[in-house]
């Protein structure tokens, strides 16, 4: 009995002696599982890191950019002025980017005026942008004036009106402004972004507002027509289609000649 006990004790001591090294090395299955976990974690982290490093896609362009570009192709544009500098007549246009009537006038009448009077050099248009319909109007106006610093104000304005949404519904967002600039490859997007908050834009907006205050403006769109360099008279805008504007321009041209 005691012999058997001694033998068991010796076996137990042998197991205890072997135990520390057995405890140090985990079972093969545990080692493989640990390696697989490390591998999957590293692979997943790497794929996530790779996908998250992709640059953001460029903003999509807005519909109608090609038509606007074609319409204004070859017409001189300088700052907030469209048409030849020596055109006999000047049409000053007061608009707000969110004003729905401005959009109607712009989309229906501007193409006719551009083709009939601006392209032949008989009229130049001066943009006098206002922002009185809310913060989004100011965002849009700053974008238009920034485009003007690159002599791209009028295509930007026409594209904005062609894609106008409901007043103060959030359509004139930062994304929309980015899309507006991205729609014209000739606009330097980085410069456009910097100019939007620049002092030149502040000055342009303040100047237009001062002109509107001096004229006693009470709504948009408001048009002022007259001989270039002389005083401009307010047009009584009876219709937002070309029939509301072209007769006055024809009469002024006849009087000038």
């Amino acid at each position, binding site marked *: 009995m005691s012999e058997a006990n001694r033998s068991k004790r010796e076996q137990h001591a042998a197991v205890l002696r072997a135990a520390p090294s057995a405890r140090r090395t985990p079972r093969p299955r545990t*080692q493989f599982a*640990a390696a697989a976990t490390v591998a999957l974690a590293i692979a997943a982290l790497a794929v996530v890191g790779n996908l998250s490093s992709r640059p953001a896609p460029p903003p999509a362009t807005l519909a109608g950019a090609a038509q606007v570009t074609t319409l204004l192709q070859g017409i001189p544009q300088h700052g907030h002025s469209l048409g030849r500098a020596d055109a006999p007549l000047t049409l000053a246009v007061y608009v707000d980017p969110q004003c729905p009537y401005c959009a109607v006038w712009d989309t229906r009448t501007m193409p006719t005026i551009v083709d009939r009077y601006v392209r032949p050099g008989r009229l130049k248009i001066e943009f006098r942008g206002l922002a009185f319909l809310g913060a989004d109007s100011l965002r849009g106006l700053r974008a238009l004036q920034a485009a003007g610093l690159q002599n791209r104000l009028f295509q930007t304005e026409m594209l904005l009106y062609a894609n106008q949404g409901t007043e103060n519904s959030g359509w004139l967002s930062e994304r929309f402004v980015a899309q507006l600039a991205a729609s014209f490859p000739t606009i330097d997007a980085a410069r456009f972004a910097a100019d939007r908050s620049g002092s030149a834009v502040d000055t342009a907006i303040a100047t237009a507002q001062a002109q509107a205050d001096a004229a006693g403006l009470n709504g948009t769109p408001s048009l002022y027509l007259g001989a270039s360099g002389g005083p401009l008279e307010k047009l009584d805008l009876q219709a937002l289609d070309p029939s509301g504007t072209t007769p006055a321009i024809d009469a002024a041209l006849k009087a000038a000649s």
Partner: protein
Amino acid sequence: MIRRRLNACSLTWPLIAAGIAICLLTLNERSAGSLACPTSGCRIVQSSAYAHIFGLPLALAGLVGLLALGGLLSVKGYIGRVVSAGLAAGSALFALYLIGLQLFVIGAVCAWCTANDTIAVALALLLCYRLVAGRNDP
């Protein structure tokens, strides 16, 4: 004898991969022509939207990974074997993902990148074999 060879391979291949990664980084920095790239797709792949990981060039991240692997290979015992095999296997999975991107998403193949990816897969097989072979070692 076999273990010594395994260890030699484990150290040699990362060195080759590191050399290629340095070449790729140089290619990335300088405007290398088609002569430097046998498949003429290196610049396309290197300038693609998938050429970075956490903002770093992939080749630089690969170098960091190889340095880590080198460090792990010098760690004795099962922890070194397990973690190095895990790192190598994870890198190999990522390398397969990158090969897939080249073939099916980017539509261009960068020979140097593919060489590095192949080494990553081979290294993973080697280190997994090393793990299996030494599974009962302390």
